[in-house]
């Protein structure tokens, strides 16, 4: 065997001697230094880890296999794959990715998948240090890609750690072979990155914030709770509840009572018999500008009564236009419009975290007089379906004395008959209102709101469904209210002459705790409620300690959202105003650019100065200042000219200066050449003397 092993390379050598290029390619083998190899693998693993959840399993397996292959190659048990194998691997990966993602091949997930496959395949093709560098730079890039999915504090902290790991790999690649201690390299990388933190902070605060040129289409609308612009109660038999954050609210004064927290978003006033939809917008929306002059009558006629509540909302991206407010909102913001049904929406879709300030007046009167149009819209009812419910309504209306009376008796009907609040109601057929009211009698807010509104319309009372969120969770640590997707709710509004639109929540009649304590309390018994939350801390809300911990974490998260993620152009401008007084946006931008340019110029000058010198001793510095001054007078000191010789030359030309010049030169010689530690007092007087000499001219 050993004989054979000895023979083969010999034969190869003689054979390839004529083709020098080939020989060089096959014989040179680049071995990654041990420390660098450890950190390289750690970097790749660390970068892949956070993506494991949203990528197909086979991709993880491919990554694992590639890394195992890399280890075997490093140990010398395997050789680097040839070109054919590499080509085959690439083709297989391309096919797999196309098959996996199909039509979504240009989605973010697919792109991240391609990146990860690229990184791991590159591990099998490392002939030069350059290849290792490629992988490491890709790691940095992919690390940032994680932020597309989540921007939580945990992810940021994890990314910082991974950045240190990748930097360690980068450092160890350039370290000598004898530095065999990975931890030492890690510490060095940590120190280096820690040193760059002030610069990072400065850039974060000062670098001009430009809104992104594009946004990544991420929203994958699955059938989870949350709001859409239509509602079909009969179709849903299993409502998955998601604990995802919808928005956070911070009240500037005292928060209103829990049962008042109706976060209104959309009105659904077009009913097809099965589905409630957002109807046509018949009147132009009212833009919410301060001092606007084109106020429409319906906007003008809103009467604000009683207590106002001021609050700030940070809304998670919804990829929709509408926003959530308590009733009746007053917003002075150029970015928003108010629709005819008093819904507030943004002009652009909310693709990033969005913050706004609102003042709401909980008692109000709007549309008190019939303007005909919106009331007519709110009375329309399809008569070909839900005939039983229609008959029931007409019958009930006849017995009731007034509209208010009728509303009360309908609510009593919900309360007295055996209606049941559940998240897994049976599916409904072609007459969903009929079936719900008289047969199944179990459902959630949508069923109640839908049937109630139908009953109102059937009796000729204008009514509409309103969707939004109800309640939220109050965090005592920073007094913020967290509203999650499972707080989504639907209720009704009825129009009464002279009173305008009034909110009626039929769910409250069936499950009063839903509107007094929130959906969690209502649904505690239903085990499927938290299925989506998995291992999240939300499971442990019954334990006092863990709940406190969770609330603390959420407070941190709120600050993170509020001050880091939400740090935008406006906040930057505000910071500048606080620091430097009032500034226009342009002025701020220009000053920041000027500041950055100055720093860059300074660095460039320092680097490109003829030669880097160690700092000069103070005496020499003063003397050189003096020389510069003399040069300004037309007597530059020549390169290499020692002080006494310089003195001689100048005195010969200007004998009247001799005394002063000689004094300075002698003193300098005394300071610079007699001792290494000159007397500070003498030094000071020398500096003064030079300054005086300069004033003399």
């Amino acid at each position: 065997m050993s004989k054979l092993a000895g023979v083969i390379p010999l034969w190869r050598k003689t054979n390839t001697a004529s083709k020098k290029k080939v020989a060089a390619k096959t014989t040179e083998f680049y071995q990654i230094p041990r420390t660098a190899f450890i950190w390289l693998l750690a970097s790749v693993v660390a970068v892949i880890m956070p993506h494991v959840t949203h990528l197909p399993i086979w991709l993880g397996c491919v990554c694992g296999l590639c890394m195992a292959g890399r280890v075997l190659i490093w140990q010398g048990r395997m050789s680097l794959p040839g070109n054919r194998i590499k080509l085959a691997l690439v083709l297989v990966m391309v096919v797999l990715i196309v098959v996996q993602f199909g039509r979504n091949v240009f989605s973010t997930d697919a792109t991240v998948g391609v990146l990860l496959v690229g990184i791991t395949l590159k591990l099998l093709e490392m002939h030069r240090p350059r290849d290792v560098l490629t992988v490491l730079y890709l790691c940095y890039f992919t690390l940032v890609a994680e932020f597309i999915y989540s921007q939580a504090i945990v992810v940021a902290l994890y990314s910082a750690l991974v950045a240190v790991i990748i930097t360690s790999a980068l450092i160890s690649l350039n370290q000598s072979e004898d530095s065999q201690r990975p931890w030492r390299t890690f510490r060095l990388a940590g120190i280096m990155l820690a040193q760059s933190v002030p610069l990072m902070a400065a850039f974060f605060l000062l670098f001009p914030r430009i809104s992104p040129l594009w946004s990544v289409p991420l929203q994958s609308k699955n059938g989870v709770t949350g709001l859409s612009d239509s509602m079909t109660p009969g179709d849903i038999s299993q409502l998955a509840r998601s604990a995802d954050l919808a928005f956070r609210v911070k009240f500037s004064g005292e928060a209103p009572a829990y049962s008042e927290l109706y976060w209104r978003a959309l009105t659904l006033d077009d009913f097809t018999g099965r589905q409630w939809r957002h109807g046509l917008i018949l009147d132009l929306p009212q833009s919410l500008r301060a001092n606007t002059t084109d106020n429409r009558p319906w906007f003008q006629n809103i009467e604000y009564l009683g207590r106002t509540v001021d609050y700030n909302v940070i809304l998670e991206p919804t990829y929709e236009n509408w926003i959530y407010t308590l009733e009746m909102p007053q917003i002075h913001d150029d970015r928003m419009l108010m629709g005819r049904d008093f819904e507030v929406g943004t002009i652009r879709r909310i693709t990033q975290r969005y913050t706004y300030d609102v003042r709401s007046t909980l008692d109000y009167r709007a549309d008190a007089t019939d303007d005909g149009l919106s009331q007519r819209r709110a009375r329309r009812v399809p008569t070909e379906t839900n005939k039983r419910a229609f008959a029931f309504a007409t019958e009930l209306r006849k017995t009731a004395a007034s509209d208010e009376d009728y509303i009360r008796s309908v609510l009593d009907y919900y309360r007295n008959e055996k209606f049941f609040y559940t998240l897994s109601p049976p599916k409904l057929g072609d007459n969903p209102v009929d079936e719900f009211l008289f047969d199944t009698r179990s459902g959630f807010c949508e069923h109640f709101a839908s049937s109630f509104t139908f009953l109102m319309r059937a009796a000729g009372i204008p009514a509409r469904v309103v969707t939004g969120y109800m309640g939220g969770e109050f965090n005592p640590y920073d007094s913020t209210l967290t509203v999650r997707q499972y707080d989504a709710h639907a209720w009704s509004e009825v129009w009464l002459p002279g009173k305008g639109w009034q909110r009626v929540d039929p769910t409250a009649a069936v499950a009063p705790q839903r509107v007094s304590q929130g959906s969690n309390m209502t649904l505690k018994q239903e085990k499927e409620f938290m299925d989506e939350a998995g291992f999240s801390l939300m499971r442990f809300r019954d334990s006092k300690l863990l709940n406190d911990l969770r609330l603390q974490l959420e407070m941190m998260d709120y600050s993170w959202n509020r001050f880091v993620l939400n740090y935008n152009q406006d906040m930057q401008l505000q910071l500048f105003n606080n620091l430097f007084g009032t500034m226009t946006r342009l002025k701020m931008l220009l000053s920041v650019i000027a500041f950055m340019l100055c720093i860059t110029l300074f660095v460039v000058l320092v680097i490109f100065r003829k030669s880097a010198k160690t700092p000069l001793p103070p005496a020499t510095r003063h003397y050189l200042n003096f020389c510069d001054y003399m040069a300004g007078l037309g007597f530059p000191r020549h390169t290499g000219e020692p002080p006494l010789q310089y003195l001689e030359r100048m005195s010969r030309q200007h004998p009247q200066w001799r005394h002063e010049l000689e004094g300075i030169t002698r003193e300098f010689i005394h300071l610079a050449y007699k001792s290494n530690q000159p007397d500070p007092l003498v030094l000071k007087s020398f500096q003064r003397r030079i300054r005086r000499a300069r004033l003399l001219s």
Partner: protein
Amino acid sequence: MNMPMSPVSNLQEKVEQAVAEVGKVVLGKDKQIRLALCCLFSGGHLLMEDKPCMGKTTLSQALARTFGLQYSRIQFTSDLLPADILGVSIYDQNKAAFTFHKGPIFSNLVLADEINRTTPKTQSALLEAMEEGKVSVDGNTRDLPHPFFVIATQNPVSFSGTYPLPESQLDRFLMRLNIGYPDPVAERQLLLNHDQRANLVNIKQTLSAEDVSAVQAAISTVQTTDTLLDYVQRLVAYTRQDDKYSFGLSPRGAQALMRCARTWALMHNRKHVLPEDVQTVLPSVVDHRLRSVADSSGRNAEAYSQRLLTEVDVF
């Protein structure tokens, strides 16, 4: 501490007298005389290189006289043998034993005239003695007297009949001096006097071997500050980095430069070195230790050091 320093305190005066005495014979060459004195005070050997008949030998003789040292002169020729310099053992019939007859090298001051006219073998016999201060003949090592100086003269390497000294041996001379043509005033004086060398006997001894020891003891007390050492290091670094030089200054060369600069400062009654001191001694100390790229054989005695003075700044 005070004992060796007392003769140093009036060193400047003594040097002035010596320069005046030597100047009687070597006209208009004060600077060269001072540098030669500096070299001898530093305890180094001196190499004088110039065209024939420029006064090299006269200067060396005058220096010997002003120091009052016992001196011998060896005229180097192509057939000179090491034994002619070091000495030879001769069989004494009376004692029936070999007795060693000391050669001319056993004196305080040796004038090695035209050192490059002899063969390398003989040259190295002298140069070994210069380096070690000892002579080994017939298996016995004999100490040379103290102080021991060699003042060698040589013709420019390009002249015929020369064996150039290799760099390693040139390095053993602390300084190399070029005398140069006399200036017109000195030349006129030279032409007026009918025999300049006759004045040699009139030169009075103004210095002594004790002065030399005193200066050498005082050298270490001369202050050299960081500002100065930075300058010297920049000079040395420049010879090593600049591509005009085929090799840079050796650490021994740098040491020699500092030693001479210190002596120069002492000779001017200063206890600290100034950049002027370094610049004054620099050409004589450095020139024979450097070689320009253009001159690959090293046969030209150009002044390479001038570049150093104008290119390297003092601060």
